[in-house]
């Protein structure tokens, strides 16, 4: 087993273990910090797929943006009097049944599907370099790019409109 295999398995264990902590931990602040480690693990997996731009974006956007937002939300929606912020779960039985069923289904699909295999193994020649991403965004993906900017603007205005206080 090469050294890269060990590092890969480490990142995979961090990702899945922290995600399990997010689901099964009792306190929401612990869940938020476990989510941070899980997102870092996903960024490491992106590096293994030689998508380093995506890894950097993952750390900046998810860990720096969304996670802080969620943590603020968790702390803002808590009564100060309640010391521990517990996240009890409901419908544990049905949720577990659905989860296990979906897991079996997805694993069956992964094992039995016969994926398209190109003649030459592309893994060695492929590199998602930043200039390629920029060029694709400005040519082939120009329309989705503009739609994404409109979506971001709409989300910004909508969130600000919803959150303002009613009394002037």
């Amino acid at each position, binding site marked *: 087993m090469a050294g890269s295999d060990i590092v890969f398995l480490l990142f995979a264990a961090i990702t899945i273990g922290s995600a399990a902590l997010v689901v099964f931990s009792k306190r929401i602040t612990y869940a938020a910090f476990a989510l941070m480690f899980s997102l870092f693990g996903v960024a490491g997996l992106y590096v293994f797929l030689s998508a380093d731009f995506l890894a950097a974006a993952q750390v900046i956007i998810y860990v720096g943006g969304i996670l802080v937002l969620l943590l603020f939300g968790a702390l803002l929606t808590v009564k100060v009097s309640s010391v521990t912020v517990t996240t009890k779960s409901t419908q544990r039985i049905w949720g577990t049944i659905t989860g296990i069923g979906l897991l079996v289904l997805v694993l069956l699909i992964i094992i039995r599907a016969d994926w398209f295999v190109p003649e030459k193994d592309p893994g060695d020649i492929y590199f998602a370099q930043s200039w390629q*991403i920029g060029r694709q965004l400005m040519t082939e993906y120009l329309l989705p790019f503009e739609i994404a900017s409109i979506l971001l603007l709409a989300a910004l205005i909508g969130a600000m409109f919803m959150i303002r206080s009613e009394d002037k």
Partner: protein
Amino acid sequence: MITQVITLDSFLIIGAALFILGILAVLTKRNAISVLMGIELILNAANINFVAFTFFRSYEIHGVLIALFIFVIGVSEAAVALAIVLNIYRNMQTVNLDEVDSLKK
């Protein structure tokens, strides 16, 4: 870098595990913020699958670009959903999803 361990299947299995954990969080959590965390896990699972298929099965980088757009959608979703959750808290003094049932009464 492709070895015996780092294959397409291992990435797909990681993605499947993340997806199932996200589904579990969405289905069983009471706190709305925890449900949002589950949604983020699901989006990350989809992203891993896109990038893995691009790396192992394609000469183009379309999966990486789709993953970037999924980032954008995740950011917008988090902002708007958090605004909704804060509004629910302001109106009902709780974010537990089984107590927000005024439409059922």
